[in-house]
């Protein structure tokens, strides 16, 4: 049972990654791509890590995966700000 739940979470997570990549390719302008991508990826990684944690069945590994997810989320939010800021600065200077 745990295996089924874990695997489903992994696949839903991968689905979010696919959605994010397709968004990155198809959305018309930079800022909408930025929003779509960072949200989809962080959610995708979270679900995938949760699924793998359930599959591993080891709370220590689960904790490590959770910490990595927190780290990626924090860094991702900052990175999105920095990239958006850089894009705006470049537009100003043109």
């Amino acid at each position, binding site marked *: 049972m745990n295996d089924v739940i874990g*695997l489903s979470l*992994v*696949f839903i*997570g*991968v689905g979010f*990654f*696919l959605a*994010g*990549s*397709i968004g*990155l*390719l198809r959305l018309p302008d*930079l800022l909408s*791509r*930025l929003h779509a*991508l*960072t949200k989809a*990826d*962080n959610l*995708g*990684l979270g679900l*995938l*890590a949760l699924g*793998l944690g359930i*599959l*591993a069945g080891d709370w220590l*590994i689960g904790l*490590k*995966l959770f*910490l*990595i997810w927190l*780290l*990626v989320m924090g*860094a*991702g939010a*900052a*990175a*999105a700000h*920095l*990239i*958006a*800021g*850089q*894009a705006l600065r*470049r537009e100003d200077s043109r």
Partner: protein
Amino acid sequence: MSWLLIALLLLLASLGLGLLRALVGPSLADRMLSVQLLGTGGVALLLLLSVLLGQPALIDVALVLALLAAVAVAALTGRELEHE
């Protein structure tokens, strides 16, 4: 286990699609965004690989990649010269 391998392939396909944005651009920020995706997706890929290859050390690699992806974006968006 082979279900995880399918997940891994799908994830890699997703990263490949994202990298197309890095190749075509057009703006530099688009390419940075693609690098950001590769960082997050790379972490996910490493976590899956660590289970599939039976190498728990790859979780450490995922941690380090997550840390360095943030440093890389900081370097990419680095400010201009101090005295200008």
